[in-house]
């Protein structure tokens, strides 16, 4: 009898806590569909389009050098690239950090990738044509963007020695809800993608101090490769980062979105906005997001509840 009562007590507790978690169905129905009109989705899905709008609103972003939409444009690729020492090639409609090549310099006639890999002209042409063909965008076609490479702030470089870390902030009605930084690992192959094995570190929005780490479904305090402690650090330029996120959110008609920001030595730069930000951030923060969202939208709620 007693164990049964304990079971029900625990069951009730679990139910109560489950009510604080934002689920996929609820995120889609109550946050994405009600706050983001379908016709505005391309703004977030197409990085070129987003950049136009955001830069016009005064949001700092990496500079676009070139964009390729057709194969014939690739004939001049070598000539085009000669003008730049380092750059990033990415699909305009890619997701999850896929299809991105970071070039840090030349190696004879070839190019040197950030991981030390050598790219020939043919490699780059092939990669760009794959992008144009839509290999990375689940679509019929796409554009390839060549843009300036962000050099990481030294403090971030210490935190994330294997690649560019980004800061993800979930914005609802132009206000920050939850945030984390995603740090590439050997496991994630240099990508800041949690599902591919990047390290996620929760950030307290008010202070910019890191609170919890999560790597491959486990709580951690240290970077799995460098062994450096990632908890209790204050991110550089934190007030500026939050300000940038708010400015970006206000600039677009999307009212529930994920904002991805990188920190260079002279301040934060916005990488992209995401109209379907993932839910894993809750595990990284070890906290459900629904209770925060509900508290934020209590007044004049359009939540439908």
């Amino acid at each position, binding site marked *: 009898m007693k164990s049964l009562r304990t079971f029900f007590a625990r069951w009730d*507790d*679990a139910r109560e*806590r*489950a009510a*604080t*978690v934002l*689920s*996929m*169905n*609820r995120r889609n*129905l*109550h946050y994405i569909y*009600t706050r983001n009109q379908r016709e505005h989705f391309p703004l977030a899905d197409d990085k070129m389009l987003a950049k136009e709008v955001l830069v016009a609103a005064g949001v700092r972003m990496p500079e676009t050098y070139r964009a390729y939409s057709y194969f014939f444009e690739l004939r001049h690729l070598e000539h085009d690239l000669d003008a730049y020492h380092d750059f990033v090639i990415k699909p305009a409609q890619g997701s*999850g950090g*896929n299809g991105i090549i970071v070039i840090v310099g030349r190696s004879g006639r070839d190019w040197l990738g950030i991981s030390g890999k050598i790219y020939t002209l*043919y490699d780059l042409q*092939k990669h760009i*044509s*794959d992008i144009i*063909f*839509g*290999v*990375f965008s*689940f679509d019929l076609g796409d554009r390839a963007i060549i843009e300036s490479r962000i050099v990481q702030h030294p403090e971030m470089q210490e935190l994330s020695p294997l690649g560019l870390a980004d800061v993800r902030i979930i914005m609802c009605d132009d206000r920050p809800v939850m945030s984390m930084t995603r740090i590439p690992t050997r496991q994630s192959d240099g990508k800041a993608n949690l*599902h*591919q094995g990047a390290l996620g570190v929760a950030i307290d929005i008010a202070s910019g101090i890191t609170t919890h780490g999560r790597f491959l479904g486990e709580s951690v305090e240290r970077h799995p490769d460098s062994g450096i402690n990632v908890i209790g650090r204050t991110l550089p330029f934190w007030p500026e980062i939050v300000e940038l996120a708010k400015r970006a959110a206000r600039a677009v008609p999307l009212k529930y979105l994920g904002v991805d920001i990188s920190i260079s030595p002279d301040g934060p730069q916005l990488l992209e906005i995401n109209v379907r930000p993932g*839910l894993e951030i*809750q*595990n990284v*923060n*070890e*906290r*459900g997001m629904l*209770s*925060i969202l509900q*508290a934020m939208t209590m007044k004049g709620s*359009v939540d*439908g509840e």
Partner: protein
Amino acid sequence: MINKSGNARRGVYILVLAVMVLLPMSVTAYKLYVLDYPLAGLIPASSYKVEVSMQVDGHGEDIDIHTYLPKTDSRQSVDSEQNSSGVFTAELKSDQLNREALWKAENVRGTQSILYAYEVRARHVRYKIPADMTIPDSYPASLALYLVAEPGVQKDDPQIEAALRGIVPMEKPTILDAVTRIHRHLQDNLANRDFSGYTDALTALKLGEASCNGKSRLFVAFARKLNIPARLVGGLIMQQGSKRTSHQWVEVYINGHWVPFDTINDHFAEIPANFLTLYYGDLVLFKHTANVNFQYFFKITKQLVTQPDVQSALSQSVLNVTNFYAFFDRVGISQNLLKILLMLPLGALVTVVFRNVVGFETFGTFLPALIASAARDTGLMWGLVGFLAIILISAIVRRALDWLQLLHSPKMAIMLTTVVIVMMAITVGGVKIGLFELAHMTLFPIAILAITAERVALMEAEQGAMKVARITFMTLIVIAACYAVMESLFMQSLILAFPELLLVVIALNLWLGKWIGIRVLEFVRFRRLILDPQGMGSKA
């Protein structure tokens, strides 16, 4: 502004939902209560597919083969007849009682075979014989031939007469008394012999043992001697498997009905649902030209089928489902195709439940339902194997082509070509080793193959082999679930009889479309947030 349009949307949602539930429910209720649809029609019926295989060896002579084919009557219905007779031409004849098939060929050389197949659905019938009915003194002239002696039915033989007096000693027995005594005597006192040759009535009596034909002839002789019309029936006991043995039993004319008796299997005035009547009279099932090494066997496959035709006998109302299907029939859309079409929404609903309630990821929303309906022809297992084969081939070919460094579209085209070639190879291989389910693999709709192959290749490039393996596994489970629902005979009968229930499927999807609960797999994903009190922050 948002609130206002939100309220309007909510109103429309509830209205549509109500219509989608109430409309089909009332149509169904109307059919059940006003049109009197039988619910029994929803229970699947047993059906038997009977294949008669015949084979001869010719040495240049003309060969005739003759047999009897079953007729549709009030107890058994025969359809989907197929004749595949090679060098033989087939000729069908029908008279009052029997249907005959005659296959003819000239100058036959070598081994030749004939396959005749049909599907049978039959009922179990039991007769009640009035207890006080006496044996009539005279019958209509048309029954005279069922009262006379025949070469195998020696009803006037003194030994048979004497035996009959011992079995039915009364001067004026009732019919019930007479047939009961004859039946019990033959069933209990004459041993069953598993002997396939011909036994006449007298021989059976003398030996005190007989197979079905001997007992039946003796039964007919006894009955006719008592002035009760009786006849032999030749047929087949339908059981899953292959057999050469046919069966004979008896029908006795009582009170205007031909009442069946089987004194081998002790069926008194009844006939089971798996008895197939092939012919009436003292006839031989197969006749053929001599010395051609004639071989035959019956292959019988039991299957469950829906019985939509139960509704066909019903009202002529526009809501009668049969009339509705007649439109499709008129333009040549088969009931089978219609069934696939009608079951697809259910498959999609199953997929939706798995995706939005359980939290599975699948290749597309329609793909599992489509694969499941493609698996109709191959069976579930080979359907899943085929699906896995496509995934595997796509993955392997993509890797190989990646290494060659080709552009995307030509790569996809090569992959599709490879998939098609492998599917054809599987079909040929299936026929060669006699696995005909496998041979139907080619019927996997090619569009589905194309979509699957491309999606798999893209996903593998984008998200890695592990992710593809996981989604493949989940998709397999969902395909199996779709198959279970879509191939369920009960569901098929239900939807065929009440197609308006598809609106309820829409209603369920409308409801699921607003369901904001936590998916089962999300409980697993966020288990620490839900189960571990330490991991929780305070509520903001």
